[in-house]
């Protein structure tokens, strides 16, 4: 019988929630890595028992954890003690070193600081881990300050795909309120050379050659909070999503505006439609209906909570513009939580499950594509990320 495994990253540890296909009775495991910020936990599509986790701390920096048994046990790749005293330790799984210019040996570029001055790149943490669609030992990491790294040895070592930072627009990138983070990585299942990423606050980018070269894909975005609202660079993209059957169709929750592209990001159009507010962080796509999408509207950039204290998921069955509120089982009074950008996911059971986590520590599940909701847990630390594995 199928089951689902929900991987939850929080401010104070990771949790693994499992249930059978009915998604009614849940087993809660955790906290794993108690006390650490767990930005993201995600499983390999090739081997569901292979999990990768980003463990971070303001004191101790970045750690990458890996599990080969679905989260029962964990290891730091390459972090084991050396058998021979005095031999060089191999642990480099948390070593994220930015490339330098091959010609000068100097930093590849600088970026724009909050005050408009140029600032050097400084590694802070891994926001998002995206395992390869074809190889369990290959995984991508989106980091702050924004860059994309790749490991092909199960996260033992990392190499930057520096064509992204180095393609020319780097000096115009600037941090959003949460830092200058590369938070979204979408791998095209039909074309292994194509990857989409998004950065706050730079925008969305695409490579068509496996990460060697990149181009901004922000045409059609309009951001009135930057000096040039239609600039090529500088848009605060909060999240992007796609359905694997139509990898050229992208959906975006921007700082303000819900957007859609039908040509792999070459042009975007707004599909906010009748949403009560088009500010928000998450966006996701139904597992079996590529035109059914979900957002959680948040009141504004200054008030990061639902409007009127009512937690409502909005669903569009038309790929945007026409939205319906989904409220059954969600608090409809005095609710002032936020839903962060990586904290929504879907399962692929016949009746698509939709999941999201809140900064109030709730993780909600809808086993019927959003029609009704119930909390799986309601007192976790603030939820940073939610991923779901459907295990046959």
């Amino acid at each position: 019988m199928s089951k689902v495994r929900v991987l939850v990253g929080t401010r104070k540890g990771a949790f693994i929630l499992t249930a059978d296909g009915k998604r009614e009775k849940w087993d809660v495991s955790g906290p794993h890595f108690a006390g650490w910020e767990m930005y993201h936990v995600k499983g390999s599509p090739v081997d569901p028992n292979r999990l990768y986790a980003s463990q971070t701390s303001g004191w101790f920096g970045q750690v990458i954890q890996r599990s080969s048994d679905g989260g029962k046990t964990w290891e730091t790749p390459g972090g084991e003690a050396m058998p021979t005293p005095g031999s060089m330790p191999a642990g480099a799984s948390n070593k994220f070193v930015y490339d330098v210019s091959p010609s000068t040996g100097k930093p590849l570029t600088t970026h724009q600081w909050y005050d408009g001055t140029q600032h050097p790149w400084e590694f802070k943490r891994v926001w998002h881990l995206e395992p390869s669609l074809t190889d369990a030992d290959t995984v991508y990491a989106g980091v702050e300050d924004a860059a994309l790294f790749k490991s092909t040895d199960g996260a033992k070592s990392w190499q930057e795909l520096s064509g992204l930072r180095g393609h020319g627009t780097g000096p115009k990138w600037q941090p959003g309120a949460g830092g200058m983070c590369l938070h979204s990585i979408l791998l095209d299942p039909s074309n292994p050379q194509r990857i989409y990423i998004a950065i706050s606050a730079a925008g969305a980018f695409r490579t068509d050659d496996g990460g060697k070269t990149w181009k901004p894909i922000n045409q059609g975005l309009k951001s009135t909070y930057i000096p040039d609202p239609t600039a090529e660079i500088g848009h605060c993209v909060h999240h992007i999503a796609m359905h694997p059957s139509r990898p050229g169709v992208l959906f975006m929750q921007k700082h303000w505006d819900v957007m859609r592209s039908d040509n792999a990001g070459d042009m975007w159009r707004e599909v906010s439609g009748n949403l009560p507010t088009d500010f928000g962080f998450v966006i996701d796509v139904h597992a079996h209906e590529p035109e059914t999408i979900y957002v959680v509207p948040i009141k504004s950039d200054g008030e990061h909570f639902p409007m009127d204290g009512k937690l409502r998921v909005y669903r569009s069955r038309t790929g945007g513009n026409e939205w319906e509120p989904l409220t059954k089982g969600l608090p409809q009074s005095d609710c002032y939580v936020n839903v962060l950008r990586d904290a929504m996911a879907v399962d692929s059971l016949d009746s698509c499950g939709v999941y999201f986590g809140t900064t109030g520590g709730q993780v909600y599940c809808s086993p019927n594509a959003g029609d009704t909701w119930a909390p799986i847990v309601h007192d976790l630390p603030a939820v940073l990320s939610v991923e779901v594995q459907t295990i046959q």
Partner: protein
Amino acid sequence: MIQVILPAHLRTLARVDGEVAVNVEGQATLRSVLDALEAQYPVLRGTIRDHVTLQRRPFLRFFACQEDLSLEPPDTPLPDAVARGSEPFMIIGAIAGG
């Protein structure tokens, strides 16, 4: 053997309880003790000092024999009592929050 006291989160990460003991060839300095610690527990690389620059992470401090060694050059010899193993070398997380 030099006794090293780690912050609780790093003890968990290194899967050790209490103090750890490291063997240092030659003079015991900040650098040689941290080198030995990272060689024995590679998972700690990057969590106490930067991978590349080897600079102390900003929210960590080093103490020994009630002396603050955090800002001392890396080749500063540690006190004799630490080198003999009768006093520990302490790695402490800066206090934050209420």
